C-alpha cells in the first residue's frame, strides 16, 4: 500500500513524541526522509491504514515502500538498515546494548501512559499516577547519574526515546503539582542539554503547545 516509492517516508503527527523519536534519530544520522503529516483525530488516510493495519497509529517508517511500525522497532530498524550512518545509537557491546534496550523499554512502558493517567484521572487515580511518575523520573535521574547523556558521552538510544517526552514534563508538572527541576535536577539539566542540539530543537513541540493539545484531547474525551 506504500507503493514503490523509493527512500524514506515517515507517517507523522506534529505532537507525537513517538514520531519525534524517529525524526531525531533520522536527523542525527543525516538520513533524508519525507514527513507526511497524518490526520489522527478525524479520518485516517488509506496509506496509514494500509501501512499499519494492526494498530492504525503513527509513526510508520516506509522504506522503499515497506512499512516498519512501532517507534522503538523503527529506531532499531534504522540502526540495522543503515549501518554506515553515524552515529550508532546503540553501543557495540552486547551487554551495553541490553542495558540501553532495558532503559528505553522502561521509558516506553511507563512515562507516556502514566502521564496520560495524570491528566485523565482525578482524585485517587491521579494521586497514584503522580506517585508513579515521580518514582519513574527519580529512577531515570539515578540511572543518568553524572553522565552527560544516558548513552554516556554521546546521545544514544535511551536519550532519543526519552527526549520527546520532555516537552510533556511541563503538563505533567501542572497536573501533578511537582517540579522536575526540584525532584530530578540532573534529568532537568539533561533535558536542557538535549534541547540545545539542532536535531532536537527542530523537532520538539514547545511545552505550551503540548499543554494546549492536552486541553484539546480533554475536550475530545469529554473530560473538561
Amino acid at each position: 500500500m506504500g507503493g514503490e516509492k523509493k527512500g524514506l517516508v515517515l507517517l507523522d503527527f506534529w505532537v507525537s513524541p513517538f514520531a519525534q523519536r524517529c525524526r531525531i534519530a533520522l536527523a542525527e544520522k543525516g538520513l533524508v526522509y519525507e514527513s507526511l503529516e497524518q490526520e489522527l483525530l478525524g479520518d485516517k488516510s488509506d496509506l496509514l491504514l494500509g501501512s499499519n493495519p494492526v494498530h492504525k497509529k503513527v509513526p510508520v517508517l516506509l522504506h522503499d515502500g515497506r512499512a516498519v511500525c512501532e517507534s522503538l522497532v523503527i529506531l532499531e530498524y534504522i540502526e540495522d538498515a543503515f549501518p554506515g550512518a553515524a552515529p550508532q545509537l546503540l553501543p557495540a557491546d552486547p551487554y551495553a546494548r541490553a542495558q540501553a534496550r532495558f532503559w528505553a523499554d522502561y521509558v516506553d512502558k511507563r512515562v507516556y501512559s502514566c502521564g496520560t493517567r495524570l491528566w485523565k484521572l482525578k482524585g485517587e487515580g491521579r494521586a497514584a499516577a503522580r506517585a508513579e511518575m515521580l518514582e519513574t523520573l527519580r529512577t531515570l535521574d539515578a540511572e543518568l547519574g553524572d553522565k552527560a547523556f544516558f548513552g554516556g558521552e554521546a546521545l544514544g538510544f535511551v536519550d532519543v526515546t526519552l527526549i520527546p517526552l520532555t516537552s510533556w514534563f511541563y503538563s505533567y508538572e501542572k497536573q501533578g503539582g511537582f517540579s522536575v527541576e526540584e525532584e530530578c535536577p540532573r534529568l532537568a539539566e539533561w533535558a536542557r542539554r538535549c534541547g540545545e542540539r539542532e536535531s532536537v530543537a527542530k523537532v520538539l513541540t514547545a511545552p505550551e503547545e503540548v499543554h494546549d493539545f492536552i486541553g484539546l484531547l480533554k475536550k475530545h474525551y469529554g473530560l473538561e
Partner: protein
Amino acid sequence: MAEKGVKVFGMWASPMVIRVEWALRLKGVVYEYVDEDLASKSDALLRRNPVTKKVPVLVHDGKPIVESTIIVEYIDEAWKDGYPIMPADPHDRAQARFWARFADDKCNAAIYPVFTATGKAQREVVREAQRCLKTLETALEGKKFFGGDAIGYLDVVVGWYAYWLPVIEEVSGASIVTDEELPLMKAWFDRFLAVDVVKDTLPPRDKLLALNKARRAQLLSA
C-alpha cells in the same frame, strides 16, 4: 574473584523464563538454573534486579540482564557464532520485533481473562483472544515456523502458547486454538513442540495443570 559462567534466575512454571532457556539451549550454552519462590524472592534475585524485581534474570560473568525479550536478543548477540535466533535481514528483524511486542502487549492481555471467565462472558473473551491470535497467525502464512524453515526469535517469544494455552484451555474449559479458528497456529504448535530444545525443556504437564487449577480456584474465590 570475578564471577564466571551463566546463571538463570527463574520460576519453573513461567513462560517468560522458558524463552531464555530455549535461547540458551539453541546456542548450546551451559547454564545454572536457580528456581525462585516468587512469594519470597531471594536476596540474590533482588540484588540482581532491583528495578523490576522480576524473573527471568540472566547473569553472565556476574552481569545481570533483565526482561525476557531483551535477554533473548542479548543471548543471540553474545553468542553470535551459534544458532542464529534473530533473522539477518533488517526488515525481517523489524517484523519479528513488531510481532513479539504485539503478542506480549495485546495477545497476552486478551488471553489472561479467559483463565477466569465463565459462561457467556467466557465466550466473548475467547473470541477476543482468537481475534488477537488470528492477527498474529498472519505472520505464519506460507512458513513452517515464524522464523521460516527453522525456529527463530518470534517462535522463542510466542512458543509458550503451544504448551501453556492447551493447559489454560483444560483448566478453564475454554477452546481457543482450534483447527477451525486457527489452523496455521494449531499446526505450528505441533511442529514447535517437536523441536528438540523445546521438548527437552518443558515443565511437567501434570504439575503445570495442578498449579493453574489451584491458581484459577484462588482467583475465582477472591
